[in-house]
């Protein structure tokens, strides 16, 4: 479980994240949603230590991550898998090399065990037998799946996904969402997903935090969100008139 308590962040004079607290539960897909520029990616970057925090606490199973010594921080990070928005796969390495990289670095597995683990991860993300492809040879959806395979290769305890659906068609988005959710449940991972894709929110949002102008504005789950009375959240959810019409039609039925 990861808990953030009263975290805040400023860039120069600009307050980007303002006193945010939330508990990300183990074995659930926890979503941080909000408009572009609302501070959700900044929250995630603070959580993984890519941005320093200006105040508050980030607790990984009780350990306050920002004040841990470098070595202990690295130990926590070894338990983190992260799916970046652009994939962040190593261009000069094949998929197999990308996925086995954390295994080479942190485990004493034999070559055969590593190969089995790579194949297992590729199977999980439906990229069986694509071991020797380079990231440049993959489509957007395949890149995300390959990055997900790398993120889970070292059995992470915590999985972070930064806008996993951005740039993908609705069908591929659903595949990625389902993958994230099934991996979360299967391996009991604490998963944190940053998104503004409403379909993902409803489909996989088991624990949702809505951020508005850097502040925590609403907490609940993906199903509750459609019945919210919070005006800012309503604006966000039903930003498209089409979505509103669909929702009203479903309610009438």
């Amino acid at each position, binding site marked *: 479980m990861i808990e953030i308590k009263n975290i805040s962040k400023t860039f120069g004079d600009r307050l980007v994240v303002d006193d945010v607290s939330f508990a990300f539960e183990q074995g659930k897909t926890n979503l941080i949603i909000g408009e572009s520029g609302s501070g959700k990616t900044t929250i995630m970057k603070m959580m*993984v*230590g*890519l941005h320093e925090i200006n105040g508050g606490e980030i607790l990984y199973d009780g350990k306050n991550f920002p004040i841990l010594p470098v070595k202990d921080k*690295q*130990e*926590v*990070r*070894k338990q*983190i898998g*992260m799916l*970046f*928005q*652009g994939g*962040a*796969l*190593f*261009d000069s390495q094949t998929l197999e090399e990308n996925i086995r*990289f*954390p295994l*080479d*670095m*942190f485990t004493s597995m034999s070559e055969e065990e590593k190969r089995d683990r790579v194949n297992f991860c590729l199977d999980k993300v439906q990229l069986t037998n694509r071991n020797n492809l380079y990231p440049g040879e993959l489509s957007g959806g395949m890149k995300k799946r390959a990055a997900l395979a790398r993120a889970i290769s*070292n059995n992470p305890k915590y999985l*972070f996904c930064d806008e996993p659906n951005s740039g993908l068609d609705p069908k591929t988005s659903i595949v990625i969402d389902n993958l994230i959710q099934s991996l979360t449940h299967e391996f009991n991972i604490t998963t944190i997903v940053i998104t503004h894709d409403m379909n993902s929110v409803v489909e996989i949002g088991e624990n949702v935090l809505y951020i508005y102008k850097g502040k925590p504005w609403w907490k609940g789950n993906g199903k509750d969100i459609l019945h919210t009375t919070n005006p800012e959240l309503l604006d966000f959810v039903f930003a498209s008139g089409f979505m509103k019409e669909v929702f009203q039609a479903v309610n009438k039925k």
Partner: protein
Amino acid sequence: MKLFFHLGRYFILIKRVFSKPEKLSVYLKQIVHEIDNIGIGSLPIISIISFFMGGVITIQAAFGFTSPIIPLYALGFTTRESMLLEFSPTIVCLILAGKIGSNIASEIGSMRITEQIDALEIMGINSAGYLILPKILAAIFILPFLIAISMFLGIFGGYVMGIATGACNSYEFIFGIQAFFEPWKLYYSFTKVITFAFLITSISSYFGYYTQGGALEVGKSSTSAVVYSSILILVFNFIITQLFFT
């Protein structure tokens, strides 16, 4: 003030680079890869330049040595001294600063802007150490060999051109390259090479590592890497020369 900011950040980065590696075997693999990339990849250009520069030095010297008091073996001596003291260790390293430096800065810079360095950090890997240390060690290891090859080919180029143009005969040239040889000059040359290898790789890595923005900024980092590496090579060339010759 900006100079102190960059100096401070450079030394902090270097401290991170030389911290204990996570897994030695992975680093060793990287070092071998970098030796191939930096060393073997630069061999053809270094060989061609050195051979022809040696030849040109010999021809120019022959053209200048018109006095009958100057013995003909001075051609071999001049070529050797020029190649050993300055051309191979300094000019070739300046050429390598352009080739290797821009390559390193753009490689690390691209990794930065595509979040690959963030990915390494989040995995719990010291990204500075993993990306930069193998490059520094590989360059320090392989550049002296490259420069030795450059020295040999330069002198050989001088020999071939000297004979081909009739400026001197084989015996005189070979006598010249053996005459008044002082071994400490080789220590001087290789001290320079090792220093320059460190400067080229660390400065280029620094500019690549702190790239911010997009493709344009990667290009700018690459240019800065070459410019600052070249300037510092010249400054350290002066300092080391002053230390050895006084």
